[in-house]
């Protein structure tokens, strides 16, 4: 039986998505499942990721007159919970050889940075959904665009971070699921098992935990309490450091890049509205039911704190003061 497994596995060896080390490591435990999914070439997983402005450093010039965000004015990072989502996908890839992980992100050209970042950590490839017509989309229009791209990729499973730090809405995961007509499992902390085509997932809720199960396809959103993403891997970094979108390649004139262009795995596809067969009316500002009416900047009220030291006299004075004004007592 093991021999059969190995021959089934050989087909996978041709492409380097096959991870022979993990294959042997997990063989005794997951032999049955492995067999089942070897024949299906593993799972096809899409990880939804967002490049977000680092909201700890929002300057005054970060907003445009129409109330939308001027992302160009902010440092951009991989949304933290999307990294947790990526890790869950990579763990499935470790367990089920032949599994592929595709990073799907929507944003401007520079969002290709997070696709590369994902590839350095173990993702196989990525797609950049980029088009001026996507600009100004609220969560609903964003979810529509992403769901159209997911339909084109046709994965078995979509995993996303629960929410992005720039909006904190936690809406895109459930809305993508609804647009696809798939069930959703939000607040996931870990994917416990995948057997008989059924995913078992542990959810972390405010007041406890819940374990749920369901058949694929589905959308899972992952919380920050899930394991952190693995770091970059030197091998992947060497392999993908020259991965470029078509637009990025066009900016390069050297022969070196022309040669790289011939290597398929270094090309990051860019999809626009037409590529995902999207209805323009459902995108951007026109496709967004919510409108930003007003933006107010938060300003800390200038108030002088009374400064105290850790000396006993200061502490006793404070306690007496608090008792005198009945704050404690």
């Amino acid at each position, binding site marked *: 039986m093991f021999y059969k497994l190995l021959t089934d596995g050989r087909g996978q060896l041709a492409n380097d998505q096959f991870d022979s080390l993990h294959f042997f490591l997990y063989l005794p435990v997951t032999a049955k499942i492995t067999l089942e999914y070897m024949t299906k070439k593993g799972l096809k997983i899409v990880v939804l990721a967002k490049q977000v402005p680092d909201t*700890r450093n929002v300057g005054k010039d970060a907003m445009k007159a129409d109330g939308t965000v001027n992302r160009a004015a902010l440092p951009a990072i991989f949304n933290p919970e999307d990294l947790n989502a990526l890790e869950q996908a990579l763990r499935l890839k470790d367990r089920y050889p032949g599994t592929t992980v595709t990073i799907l992100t929507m944003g401007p050209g520079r969002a290709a940075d997070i696709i590369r970042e994902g590839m350095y950590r173990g993702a196989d490839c990525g797609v950049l959904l980029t088009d001026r017509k996507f600009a100004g989309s609220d969560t609903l229009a964003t979810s529509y665009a992403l769901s159209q791209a997911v339909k084109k990729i046709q994965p078995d499973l979509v995993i996303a971070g629960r929410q992005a730090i720039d909006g904190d809405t936690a809406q895109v995961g459930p809305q993508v699921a609804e647009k696809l007509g798939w069930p959703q499992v939000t607040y996931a902390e870990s994917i416990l098992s995948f057997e008989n085509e059924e995913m078992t997932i542990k959810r972390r809720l405010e007041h406890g935990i819940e374990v749920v199960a369901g058949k694929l396809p589905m959308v899972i959103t992952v919380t920050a309490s899930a394991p952190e993403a693995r770091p970059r891997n030197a091998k992947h970094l060497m392999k993908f450091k020259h991965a470029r979108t078509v637009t990025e390649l066009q900016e390069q004139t050297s022969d070196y890049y022309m040669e790289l262009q011939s290597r398929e795995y270094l090309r990051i596809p860019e999809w626009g509205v037409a590529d995902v067969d999207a209805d323009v009316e459902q995108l951007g500002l026109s496709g967004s039911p919510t409108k930003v009416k007003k933006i107010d900047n938060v300003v800390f009220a200038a108030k002088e704190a009374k400064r105290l030291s850790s000396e*006993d006299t200061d502490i006793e004075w404070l306690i007496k003061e608090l*008792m005198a004004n009945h704050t*404690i007592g």
Partner: protein
Amino acid sequence: MNNIFVYCEIENGKVADVSLELLTKGRNLADQLGCQLEALAIGHNLKGIEAELGQYGADVVHVADDARLAPYRTLPHTTLIKAVFEVEKPQIALFGASSVGRDLGPRVSSLLHSGLTADCTSLEIGSHTENKTGKVYDKLLYQIRPAFGGNIIATIINPDHRPQMATVREGVMKKEVIANAKPAQVKTIDVNKFLTDADEAIRIIEREIEERKIDIKGAPIIVAGGYGVGSKENFALLHELAQVLGGEVGASRAAVDAGFAEHARQIGQTGVTVRPKLYIACGISGQIQHTAGMEQSAMIISINNDPAAPINQIADYAITGDVSEIIPKLIKYYKKNSK
């Protein structure tokens, strides 16, 4: 028709605080708009729920009572809400910004193609004039929320789509029993007419929900710790001080992430919003994500090694020094001076 709807979260037959808070807010909005307030109670063994919901201002409650509906699962609840909303056409629909409401709200909004604003901190009624067309909208719901890690406050409107949907975090609104309340009028939802096998796609295998024991929201005094407290052992000092003062222990997200405190103690944008009469911030730098959840405290004392910590900008008293040194002194002098 065109009333305000509040989705009520129910766990073991008990309506969640956040839902009661939304009913109080919904009552206030309904009075301003001159419409009715309707509640959605979807669960199992809900007999008599109309009395409690009526106390918080609901005129009508739509009840779906079936074993398949408890505990909460996304798909059956979504299906029933859609069925009710398609007939009733609410102008406003409110959900708690909890793990239930934040799972359900987006799914419903996508299904109905209506906008949803997450984690509102304030809801008001106002008008709007569209700049391009000059079209005037009267009596819109202003959905006011922090964004960008709390660095901005955005007012979101939903001019052309109904319902106008919003989620609100627990503790942000106040719940209030109304005088001379009547039980809400019950309208029964025919569950079997709407639920299908497709709604059963996700099964619950195991569930461990703790009764809320930690109540930082209702505590008059909160001793909160941040990452600067340094360890779980040092957090024990905070518990000691809280016990002596008759308060509760809170924590910043960084402290919770570091494992110093339970998630139920988290204060800030992704945790609970509190407004105690005394807030003692220990080793908390004062990231806006945290201060958004506590800045309305009547009095704030900060204890921090760093005299320039941002928390000191909103503090009434700023003690510079080490948490592990200062807290025992606070306990000592409190005991000495209290009779």
